């Protein structure tokens, strides 16, 4: 074990699970699916493993994806891609594509290698090493899951087969982020991980508002994630969920009719937005991000209720050329403060924390 995990003892009110049980569950559920296209199956497959680390003064997003290549004129069947974005004094980072011959993804395991960038699950932790080619950012992390994963299968999609989601909302980090020659030690920082896969194209009739909240106080046993997936106009919800963990296990899930969302009518004012990859700023130079000043999710079912209010304070945009037309699909990665309160199974819930939300928009 690379570091001790003091949280396990503090999060043990729920039935205790040994780390190996969490590790086994992750190995059994979080493995790379890979596209069936190479075996004659359906193309347009997308899959990514996403990590967020929230350390004092640092937001870090790392995403390993391997998607079927759908661009005309492309010489390859798949497009391995690394997203590495960090917020220290300012946002920096990049999105890098790799030739398939420089990338290896093991089906049935969590083992991604994109040139010298690695993501592997072993010894009960995610081990992640990445360094950008053209920006002075590198990271070496060990991310130890503190909660059991939850698999949310078969989210309906309007333009194709369903999307699948696996989430491990709480991990503990050890490691270092190096930005511009300065090391940021991330030991003990909370982190989030999820994994999505499915068949769809960016630009389809799709939007989502997703986020998670990790408590400021490591002794707080609660953490949560929420998602509202809608059509592009955000008129019809296809899925709406809020999942709440207590300790290592999922404590309560709220779905669709048990949930309501309120947003501020005013947008978050921004003086600048870092956009990645940088050339996309030529196509979407706007500072209007369509991110509300606050977003509040209310959940109620029986005697259980929960209210989660997120107040954004910064945004970074990942801008991907849409695959259905000459538009741009914009992922607003939103840093926010969160307040959570409620009552679950007769127990009061009240904590403050940090949140990253993601709002998909189009230009």
């Amino acid at each position, binding site marked *: 074990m690379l570091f001790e995990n003091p949280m396990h003892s503090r999060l043990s009110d729920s039935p205790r699970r040994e780390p190996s049980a969490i590790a086994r569950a992750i190995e059994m559920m979080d493995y790379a699916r890979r596209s069936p296209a190479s075996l004659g199956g359906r193309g347009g497959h997308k899959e990514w493993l996403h990590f967020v680390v929230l350390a004092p003064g640092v937001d870090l997003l790392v995403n390993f994806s391997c998607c079927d290549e759908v*661009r*005309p*004129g*492309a*010489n390859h069947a798949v497009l391995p891609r690394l997203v590495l974005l960090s917020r220290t004094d300012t946002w920096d980072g990049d999105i890098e*594509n790799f030739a398939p011959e420089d990338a290896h993804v093991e089906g049935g395991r969590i083992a991604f290698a994109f040139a010298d960038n690695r993501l592997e699950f072993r010894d009960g932790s995610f081990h992640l090493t990445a360094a950008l080619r053209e920006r002075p950012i590198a990271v070496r992390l060990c991310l130890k899951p503190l909660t059991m994963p939850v698999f949310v299968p078969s989210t309906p999609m309007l333009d194709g087969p369903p999307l699948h989601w696996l989430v491990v909302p709480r991990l503990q980090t050890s490691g270092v982020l190096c930005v511009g020659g300065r090391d940021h030690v991330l030991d003990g920082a909370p982190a989030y991980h999820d994994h999505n896969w499915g068949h769809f194209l960016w630009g389809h009739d799709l939007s989502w508002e997703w986020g998670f909240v990790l408590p400021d106080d490591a002794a707080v046993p609660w953490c949560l994630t929420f998602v509202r997936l809608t059509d592009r106009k955000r008129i019809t919800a296809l899925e709406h969920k809020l999942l709440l963990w207590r300790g290592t296990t999922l404590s309560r899930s709220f779905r669709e009719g048990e949930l309501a969302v309120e947003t501020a009518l005013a947008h978050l004012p921004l003086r600048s937005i870092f*956009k990645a990859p*940088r*050339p*996309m*700023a*030529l*196509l979407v*130079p706007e500072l209007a991000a369509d991110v509300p000043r606050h977003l509040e999710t209310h959940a109620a079912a029986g005697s259980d209720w929960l209210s989660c209010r997120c107040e954004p304070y910064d945004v970074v945009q990942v801008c991907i*050329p849409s695959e259905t037309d*000459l538009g741009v699909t914009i992922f607003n990665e939103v840093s926010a403060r969160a307040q959570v309160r409620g009552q679950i199974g007769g127990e009061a819930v009240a904590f403050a924390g940090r949140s990253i939300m993601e709002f998909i928009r189009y230009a």
Partner: protein
Amino acid sequence: MPETRFADFLATSLQALDRELPQAYALLCTHLAGQQLAIEVDGEMVGLSFAGGRARLLARAAPATVHVVTSRALIFDLIDARCTLLQAVLSDRLLVRGAPQELLAFHDGLLAYLHGAVRAPSFPPLLRAYRAAARP
């Protein structure tokens, strides 16, 4: 062989756009139909005309509807987001001259070209070669 001249880069990139992103190429030609551009990059003059759904580099300067004067340094600054198009125009690092209607068409055509550029698989190596040739 690196593309050392802007004219070569532009010609090769338009061929790639036509081949790999015909939708963007067609949109570019539609926006700029009937236009003649005169583009000067670090003193190198390139003429470009649009007719019949095709873009054609001109062997010699011709009367232009839109004149553009800029530099390789600014092109790279724009691509690397060190500068926006608006900042480039306001700081006179990008000079664009023409009738308002034609300038609007030029802007729309430029965006169509860029939408193709960020999608076409051939563009990253093409741009790398152009950058490499620009290094002292």
